């Protein structure tokens, strides 16, 4: 039997973990939202000035550059993750691309919702705040016509380990929902809990699903 004299690191060079990529993406997203928000606020303020001082444009340029820098950091991180964890098999590539597309659309929908809220004087509640009917209908159409087919495509291309992780997460999330919903409902009927909030239960169920999936798949 041929025995390799390569070390573990030579055979499997250390690669960026998905958790590290997720942290980098989260940081880049927060930075992009913060700096772009600051830039938009400054543009709005500068628009009201009769004569804008050069320093105002310099600060705005810095905020725009920082926003672009956050996007660049996200792009470089994603490229590094792909390079260190690849090459991907055709099936894994299709599954990854469809997951990235669905996540990107979800992110755009979230940003769209936060900008389209109907109550400009109040901090917008992304989960339950009012939306213009047209925006709500468009978001529903995106879910039905885009997210659903992309999700179906993703399911057709994941491998069996991903599928098992996803199913385990779904099962535990269902048990969580089956317990949390009646407990909250009974607590409300008993007078010691507020009325059950469907959106909160939904988001908590999705969170449980995601955490279990992540643990099964990546830890």
């Amino acid at each position, binding site marked *: 039997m*041929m025995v390799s004299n390569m070390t573990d690191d030579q055979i*499997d060079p250390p690669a960026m973990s998905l958790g590290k990529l997720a942290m980098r993406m989260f940081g880049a997203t927060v930075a992009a939202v913060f700096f772009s928000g600051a830039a938009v606020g400054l543009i709005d303020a500068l628009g009201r000035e009769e004569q804008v001082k050069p320093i105002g444009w310099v600060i705005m340029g810095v905020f725009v550059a920082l926003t672009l820098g956050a996007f660049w950091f996200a792009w470089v991180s994603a490229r590094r993750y792909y390079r260190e964890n690849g090459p*991907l098999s055709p099936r*894994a590539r299709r599954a990854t691309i469809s997951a990235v597309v669905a996540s990107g659309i979800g992110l755009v929908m979230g940003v769209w919702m936060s900008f389209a809220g109907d109550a400009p004087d109040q901090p917008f509640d992304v989960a339950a705040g009012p939306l213009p009917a047209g925006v709500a209908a468009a978001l529903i159409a995106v879910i039905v016509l885009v997210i659903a087919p992309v999700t179906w495509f993703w399911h057709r291309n994941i491998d069996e380990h991903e599928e*098992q992780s996803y199913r385990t997460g779904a099962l535990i999330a269902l048990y969580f929902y089956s317990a949390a919903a009646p407990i909250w409902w009974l607590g409300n009927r008993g007078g010691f809990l507020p009325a059950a909030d469907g959106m909160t239960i939904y988001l908590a169920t999705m969170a449980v699903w995601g955490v279990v999936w992540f643990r099964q798949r990546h830890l």
Partner: protein
Amino acid sequence: MNNRLRVLRAERQWSQADLALKLDVSRQAVNAIETGKHDPSLPLAFRIARLFQLRIEEIFDDGFQHD
């Protein structure tokens, strides 16, 4: 279930990504099988056995002892 996947892979100097590419699964799936966190389905076990030109029981060990 114990298996010799990591050893067989190392003998051929394949990374997890290389093996994943040959089996058309993700690297995470290969890692999960190697570490015993995921038992492959029968079709995937056959694909692995064919790739290494071994029988399934020469790669995977369920701990059963014959009398």
